[in-house]
Each structure stands twice: as structure tokens, then as C-alpha cells.
């Protein structure tokens, strides 16, 4: 817990100052989780604000301060899910959809100062997002929460309010789908191109 129970109790009873402190304590962590869940840096703050907005208006429904964190992560997962669903309905323009010239301009705009490490990180993010884009929103969120955010099954049980066995089955199936997507990606890009993405350049070591 990043804050003590007393502060949450105060926020729950309508103390705006206490709520402000709770948001300030959790916002960075929640924004990070959202960034990894949705993979769109430009929309992270909007989704983050939606999470805290929902928190503000639902805090009185919180049974005890002890379950605050699972509650907050539940709101985060739900807001990310709503965002992903909305995005699915909208036409999007990703790098792969842009013309070669547009990509060139985008690269130039990013600046030639971008270091190799940043390029590698970008490729990793793109590959992870590309794989996650091949499964349903539900699977994507569950996988990120488990594999990337490192939430335990017990924590996921509290967040999703689903029993552990059901979660295990769901996770196994989601992972299989991603593995299949990874295989397709590797086959399309050459045998180990996808794997090479997350290797460091030998010249760096």
C-alpha cells in the first residue's frame, strides 16, 4: 500500500484533500500500468483520469480500506478495456499503415539523436503491442496484468473476482494464442527476427 488506511477512510468519507493525496500517491503507478495495457502513450493520461474519476464517484462503495488496491486495479482494467473497445471501433493510423515517406518524416521528427537503446526499446514495445493486438481485449489485459505487471493469481482473483482455476485456464489459453501469434510473426519476419528484437547489439556489451 502506498498510503495508509486512514487516508483512504478519509477520502471515502468525502475529504477531497485526502482523495487528492491518494491520487498523487498512485497516479504514476497507475499511468504506467495503463501505458502497458493500452500501448498508446498519447492517451494514457486521459484513461488515467477516467480511472481516478471513477474512483472518486465509487469510493463510497468500497467495503474496507484493505481492498483498496484491488479495487483501484479493477477500475484501471475496466477503464483500459473500455478504451480498447472504443479504439477498436475507430479507424486508426499506425506506423505500418503510413506511407514510406510519412514514416521517413516521422523518423526525422523523432530526431536523429534517438539512441540505439531507445530504438531497441521501441521495437520491443511494437512487437509486444503487435502480439497483444492479436488477442481479444480481455486476454490482452489479463496477460499484461499477469506477465508484465507481475500480479499474482491471488491478486488477479481479487481484481477480476474470478476463482483461481478459471483464471489459470483463461491465462493458459491467452498465452497459447500469443505464442501462436509470435510464431506467425517469426515466420513472417524470418526465423528469429522477432527474437532478435529483444537482444542487445553485441557492440554495446
Amino acid at each position, binding site marked *: 500500500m502506498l498510503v495508509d488506511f486512514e487516508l483512504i477512510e478519509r477520502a471515502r468519507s468525502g475529504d477531497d484533500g485526502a482523495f*487528492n493525496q491518494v*491520487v*498523487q500517491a498512485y*497516479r*504514476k*503507478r497507475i*499511468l*504506467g500500468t495503463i*501505458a*502497458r495495457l493500452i500501448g498508446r*502513450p498519447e492517451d*494514457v*493520461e486521459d484513461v*488515467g*483520469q477516467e480511472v*481516478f*474519476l471513477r474512483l*472518486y*464517484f465509487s469510493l463510497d462503495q468500497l467495503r474496507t480500506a484493505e481492498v483498496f488496491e484491488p479495487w483501484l486495479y479493477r477500475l484501471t482494467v475496466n477503464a483500459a478495456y473500455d478504451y480498447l473497445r472504443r479504439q477498436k471501433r475507430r479507424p486508426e493510423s499506425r506506423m505500418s499503415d503510413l506511407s514510406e515517406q510519412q514514416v521517413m518524416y516521422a523518423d526525422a521528427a523523432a530526431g536523429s539523436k534517438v539512441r540505439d537503446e531507445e530504438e*531497441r*526499446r*521501441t521495437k*520491443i*514495445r511494437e*512487437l*509486444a503491442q503487435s*502480439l497483444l493486438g492479436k488477442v481479444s481485449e480481455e486476454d490482452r489485459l489479463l496477460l499484461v496484468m499477469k*506477465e*508484465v*505487471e*507481475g500480479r499474482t493469481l491471488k491478486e488477479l482473483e481479487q481484481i477480476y473476482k474470478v476463482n483461481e482455476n478459471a483464471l489459470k485456464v483463461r491465462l493458459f489459453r491467452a*498465452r497459447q494464442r*500469443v*505464442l501462436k501469434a*509470435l*510464431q506467425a510473426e*517469426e515466420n513472417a519476419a524470418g526465423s528469429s527476427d*522477432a*527474437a532478435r*528484437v*529483444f*537482444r*542487445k547489439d*553485441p557492440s554495446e*556489451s
Partner: protein
Amino acid sequence: MDRMDDKSMEGSPLEGRERRLDALWAEYRQASPDPDPGPDFMPSLWQKIDKRRTGNARVFRRLAQVCVMATVALTLLMGAVLIPRIQAEAFFAGSYAEELAAEHINADYTDFLTTGDLR
């Protein structure tokens, strides 16, 4: 993550892929650090909260107005239409004493009351 050795990927292709996927998740976590919130994060959040709060208050105020109007209309309707109709159809038109007298017009005790004869 350190350079992955091809030898570590030996075994079945599936195992190798499983390992690469696990490594990818770890790398993805490292490549996407928690972003710092912008300076407008909190002010913008409070604006949204206030907007929704006033929006909710407006909805409740409108709902209350509608309820009051409906109650007034119903009261007027009952006063103007239903009550006269009910009164017109009233079974007992007279007062309690009149009704009682009419009911027991031939009863013995009324004779007693008028004559004072106990026998």
C-alpha cells in the same frame, strides 16, 4: 536483458518460443517505465470531477422538479375531478345522527325515549 544465446533456445521450438515470450514480457516491462504525469493532470482531473458533480446535481434537480410537478398535477386532478365524483356517489348523504335515526325509525327504544314508558 542480456544477449540470449542460441544454445539456450535448444529443445523443442515451442519451449524456445515460450522462453522468448517470457523474455519479451520482461523486456516490455523495462522498455515501458511508468510515465510522469503532466502538470495538468490534477487540475484537469478536478475539472472533470466538478463537471460530473454539477452534472449529477443538475440531473437530480431536474428529477426533483419533475417529481414535484407530477405531485402537484396529481393533487389537482384528485381535487378537481376525483373528489367531487366520489362525493356524488357517496352512500351516506346525511349526518351520523340522521342516518342513525333513519335506520332505527321503528325501534322500541325510540318509543321509550319519546314516551318514557319502561314497560
